[in-house]
């Protein structure tokens, strides 16, 4: 037996060495120290033409934020290789960025509230607007928000709201707001995301409170309300929740705008609900970390994405609200209704902001209680 295992290993080693040989063209990633040290990692790639600028862009964001064609076209047009690195949550991003002291990554796209923290931590470069001639294409609605009041650090890339989507064939009632999710007929039929500020926020909204309340007593009250919701919850997940709605695993779900777009494209019979209690509003922003090794490439990329036609292509793929007003003209009719807020929407929108550590802890606690209750 051991002999067998030994020979398997020998072969594995052989395969590995072959793989390592084949890797010469893609650069320095195999050299651990090189990969770790961003200056030397890029040095051997840029050595041929550093007067011309960087030849690599480390783009750090969620999976599936750009269509492959746009990335390919950018690479072809500029000769800059896009190294697309993804994170799963904003917090992972910040932790990694902090560990790298604002280095390693050239361009980050993340959510508003985490950007506020990143700016406060000094991890974000002030933008040099002269390098972004097309910055005027940005829809001013999405500018000047709490996380970057003077638009010094970020360029918005997509915005979204949390909406309820349900399948009228699988749900007995008509859903108009968050309060309906508490209906007993929805037992074990709802899917939600694990963003606890947003989810606890549903209870806060039903109670007529703000998402950003720092009153621990109110948050605890919301926690009790959430416990009543627990029997209706079938699953909690951030990604791909629309698949479970489409496949009939659940009848209703609270989801992000991009997921709504995908769900509606797959099954037009689904109903989208903009909750009457008001909705949470979020903006994603692009920023350049303070020690970005290839910031010139980052500027080129932002400018590239600000181009109306390219932006339209991106937003159709992304499925979030289009933050580029010049691009709206290029967006396919089929998508248009998904990529902007309905004009007749009258409810309040409120952005979720950072709150005190005490309030945050209360949120975590009621969320853990709620999550445990869903398992029973």
């Amino acid at each position, binding site marked *: 037996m051991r002999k067998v295992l030994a020979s398997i290993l020998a072969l594995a080693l052989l395969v590995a060495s072959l793989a390592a040989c084949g890797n010469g063209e893609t650069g320095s990633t195999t050299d651990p120290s090189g990969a770790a040290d961003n200056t030397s990692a890029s040095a051997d790639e840029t050595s041929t033409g550093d007067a011309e600028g960087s030849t690599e862009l480390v783009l750090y964001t969620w999976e599936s934020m750009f269509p492959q064609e746009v990335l390919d076209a950018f690479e072809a047009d500029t000769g800059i290789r896009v190294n697309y690195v993804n994170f799963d*949550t904003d*917090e992972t991003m910040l932790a990694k960025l902090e560990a790298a002291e604002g280095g390693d990554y050239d361009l980050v796209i993340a959510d508003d509230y985490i950007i506020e923290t990143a700016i*406060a931590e000094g991890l974000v470069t002030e933008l040099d607007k002269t390098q972004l001639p097309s910055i005027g294409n940005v829809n001013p609605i999405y500018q000047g928000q709490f996380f970057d009041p003077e638009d010094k650090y970020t360029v918005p890339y997509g915005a979204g709201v949390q909406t309820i989507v349900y399948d009228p064939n699988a749900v007995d009632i008509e859903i108009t707001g968050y309060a309906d999710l508490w209906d007993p007929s929805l037992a074990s039929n709802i*899917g939600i995301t694990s963003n*606890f500020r947003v989810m606890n926020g549903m209870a806060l909204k039903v109670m007529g409170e703000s998402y950003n309340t720092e009153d621990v007593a109110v948050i605890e009250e919301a926690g009790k309300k959430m416990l009543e919701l627990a029997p209706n919850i079938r699953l909690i*997940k951030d990604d791909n929740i629309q698949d479970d709605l489409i496949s*009939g*695993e659940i009848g209703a779900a609270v989801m992000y705008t991009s997921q709504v777009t995908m769900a509606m494209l797959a099954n037009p019979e689904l109903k989208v609900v903009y909750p009457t209690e008001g909705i949470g509003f979020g903006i994603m922003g692009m920023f350049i970390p303070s020690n970005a090794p290839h910031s010139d490439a980052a500027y080129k990329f932002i400018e590239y994405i600000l181009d109306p036609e390219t932006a339209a292509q991106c937003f159709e793929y992304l499925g979030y609200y289009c933050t580029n007003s010049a691009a709206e003209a290029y967006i396919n009719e089929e998508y248009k209704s998904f990529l902007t807020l309905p004009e007749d929407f009258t409810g309040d929108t409120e952005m979720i902001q950072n709150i005190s*550590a005490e309030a945050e802890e209360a949120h975590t606690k009621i969320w853990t209680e709620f999550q445990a209750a869903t398992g029973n």
Partner: protein
Amino acid sequence: MKRAKFKKEALMLLPLYLFTLVFIVGPLVYMVILSFLQRAETWGVTSEFTLKNYLDILEPVYLQTFAESFKLAIISTVLIMLIGYPFGYFMAKLTAKWKKRTMMLLMIPFWTSSLIRLYGWIIIFRANGVFDKMLMGLGITDAPLKLLYTYPAVVVGMVYALLPFMIFSVYSSAEKLDWSLIEAARDLGASRIRAFLTVTLKLTLPGLLSGVILSFIPSMGLFFIADILGGNKVVLVGSLIQNQLMKAHNWPFAAALAVILTILTSVMIALYRKLSGVKDLEGIV
């Protein structure tokens, strides 16, 4: 006798000890320190001593998380034991050729990504998936069971992921078994069951216990099984630590949870050593 002379062989220990000190003792010590620090207002930690993190664990909700984790771990481990012990035992009785083949068959799934294998279970469990279709085809049920995102689905995932460890442990113990002892017991008139209980079980106990440890401990931390198959509804200590670390960003609290979990784990291992009289875990070896 000379004064304890320095043996050159001690140099061989140097890499291991250095690595252990720098990359295991270091991080673990830091974890303990971290667990006594205070969380900063927005981000990071402040170097203020506090017991708050440990006191927080005593809150009913977090104690419940530990209890739930233990419950799931116990259910899974018992099932793994019931399925894995006979497997390892029977396997040890096979001929050399078949032992080799069975081992090979066990090793192959080991080399396929465990995530992919979990994904296979999603295909089975999802509404109108393979399992539903099979039951409906046989006329046993007439509507999808919706097994995905339920507790049993998580248990199946756990059992499936950890079963090989139990099998390897029991097998390596049973392999060393002197079958003549059992035959002797039988010859002396012991019943089959009695012979099993007095001789076989006793001699394979180290393997069994090590299998229990090897399945019990990881089952408290395998958050991605609860995530993928359980729809995130079962909160394991592992998920809690991950949430505190990645989402709530409360590192000191995560560290405190980790310290407690490490202590619980060490107690279990110590208990194992005491019970089995063996120093290393059987099966890994």
